[in-house]
């Protein structure tokens, strides 16, 4: 049975950058190819993950563009699955290699966002909602806010609990030179200071600024290879042990229990089944914390904690580095940043660094298994991946 491994994996620094979308795809691709000890001509296929290239930068056919810039004439597609494009593209590369048709596949993802006003970005992002919700004025944060209000009431979760997630992710990002926001924050300055309304205003009650991931530019790239091929190039392959993907109703209002993200449950169940391991074997996880509340809910729905108990794990520090399950060691979407099409790839890049022992100041000692979940839409599409350190 063919296995799929990761060779080079890298990202640009995320943040407000001067590079354009083409450079955000090209730069990490060149680095990933070089660090794989490959050259462009070795590639069999490439996938791009990107959500809003046409809307924000007036550029589509990104696959062709990158192939051209790399000087190759191989098959190339852009994968769009909202902000889960990155994990979807990895999934497609995995399938392409697994099928036996291709041995070496490049996945590059990027988004250029910070040149546009926040309300314009909010509108474009809201295009992935159900039309009746969007036409009623709903945005992603407003749906996150309603989920948060229901969840907090049901399980006794406080604004302090949510702030603790932001504080943890900011703390992790301080040790990640690639992160967008590298600023220490405390629960006290987010919720109990005189400056609270200025630095942390309400965006969609009960979610404040620091409950919501920033708008970022960034790119990331990953080279995948059939395992036996990969072994020719590296002593440290990281294997993809499994993936899962599931959808749920496009509209939040159609979900029987709005606080359950069933797509995450189903995608994660599939990924664990394919990899033959259980959630308690995972050493490090990258979750899709577009909003702090989502980190809580996903950590339960992915199978790590019982429903309604994740906030207790946060209070005990179990999701910090050194705890039972370190979550978002990279800083997560909250602090690493969230350039939509690059996000899923940057989760994989962080896991690869962790599993190779290259995560420096934020290293989880001896990490063997890594898990990621990448959300497309408001919980309507989820892709879970399980990675393993090569033996």
């Amino acid at each position, binding site marked *: 049975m063919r296995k799929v491994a990761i060779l080079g994996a890298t990202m640009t620094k995320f943040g407000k950058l001067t590079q354009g979308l083409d450079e955000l795809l090209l730069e990490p691709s060149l680095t990933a190819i070089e660090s794989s000890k490959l050259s462009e001509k070795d590639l069999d296929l490439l996938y791009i993950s990107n959500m809003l290239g046409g809307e924000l930068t007036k550029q589509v056919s990104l696959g062709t563009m990158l192939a051209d810039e790399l000087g190759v004439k191989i098959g190339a597609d852009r994968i769009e699955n909202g902000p889960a494009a990155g994990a979807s593209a990895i999934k497609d590369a995995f399938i392409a290699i697994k099928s036996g048709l291709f041995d070496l596949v490049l996945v590059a993802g990027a988004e250029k966002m910070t040149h546009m*006003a*926040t*309300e*314009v970005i*909010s*509108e474009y992002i*809201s295009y992935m909602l*159900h*039309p*009746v*919700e*969007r*036409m*009623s*004025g*709903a*945005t992603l*944060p*407003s*749906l996150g*806010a*309603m989920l948060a*209000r*229901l969840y907090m*009431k049901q399980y006794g979760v406080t604004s302090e609990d949510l702030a603790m997630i932001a504080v943890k992710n900011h703390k992790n990002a301080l040790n990640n030179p690639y992160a967008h926001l590298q600023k220490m924050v405390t629960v006290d300055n987010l919720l109990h200071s005189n400056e609270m309304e200025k630095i942390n*205003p*309400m*965006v*969609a*009650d*009960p*979610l404040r600024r620091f409950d919501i991931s920033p708008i970022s530019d960034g790119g990331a790239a990953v080279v995948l290879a059939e395992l036996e091929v990969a072994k020719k190039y590296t002593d440290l392959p990281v294997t993809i042990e499994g993936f899962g993907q599931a959808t749920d*109703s496009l*509209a*939040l*209002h*159609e979900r029987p229990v*709005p606080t359950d993200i069933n797509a995450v449950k189903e995608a994660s169940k599939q990924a664990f089944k394919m990899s033959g391991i259980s959630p308690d074997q995972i050493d490090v996880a990258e979750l899709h914390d577009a909003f702090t509340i989502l980190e809580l809910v996903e950590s339960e729905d992915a199978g790590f904690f019982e429903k309604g108990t994740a906030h207790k794990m946060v209070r005990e520090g179990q999701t910090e580095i050194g705890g039972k399950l370190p979550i978002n060691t990279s800083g997560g979407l909250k602090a690493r940043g969230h350039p939509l099409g690059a996000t899923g790839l940057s989760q994989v890049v962080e896991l690869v660094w962790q599993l190779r022992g290259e995560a420096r100041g934020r290293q989880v000692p001896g990490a063997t298994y890594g898990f990621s979940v990448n959300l497309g839409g408001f919980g309507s599409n989820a892709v879970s991946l399980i990675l393993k350190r090569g033996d």
Partner: protein
Amino acid sequence: MIPISYWRNRRSYTALMGSRCRACGAEYFPPVRVCRKCKSRDIEPREMPRKGTLITYTKLTEPAEEFGKQTPVYLGLIELSNGVKLVSTLADVSESELNEGAPVSMVIRRWTEEGPTGIIYYGYKFKVDAAYSMS
């Protein structure tokens, strides 16, 4: 941006026109072509009741660009009296009456307008019932 299908589907937006599965009786808003529950395609139009209760809500102070003039936008997750749910803007809000379980009714209001053409789009919003507001 309001999609062009607004005009084809406007009865959904102005009269809460949804659908009902003739095979199993399940009701839907917005209308569906295939029943989510029994997968039947035997579906008929069905107007939704215009009354319901507020399950939860939020006050959105950073709306999408096209709703910017309406800031803040109050949104509610509403359960209609037939059990069908929807997300709707809340109209004429006084914050003290925003409570889970508050009875709400549909009203027709301006949703948004198109800049250059000036076309105004109307649709449903929900409003906390007057009797509840006074109590």
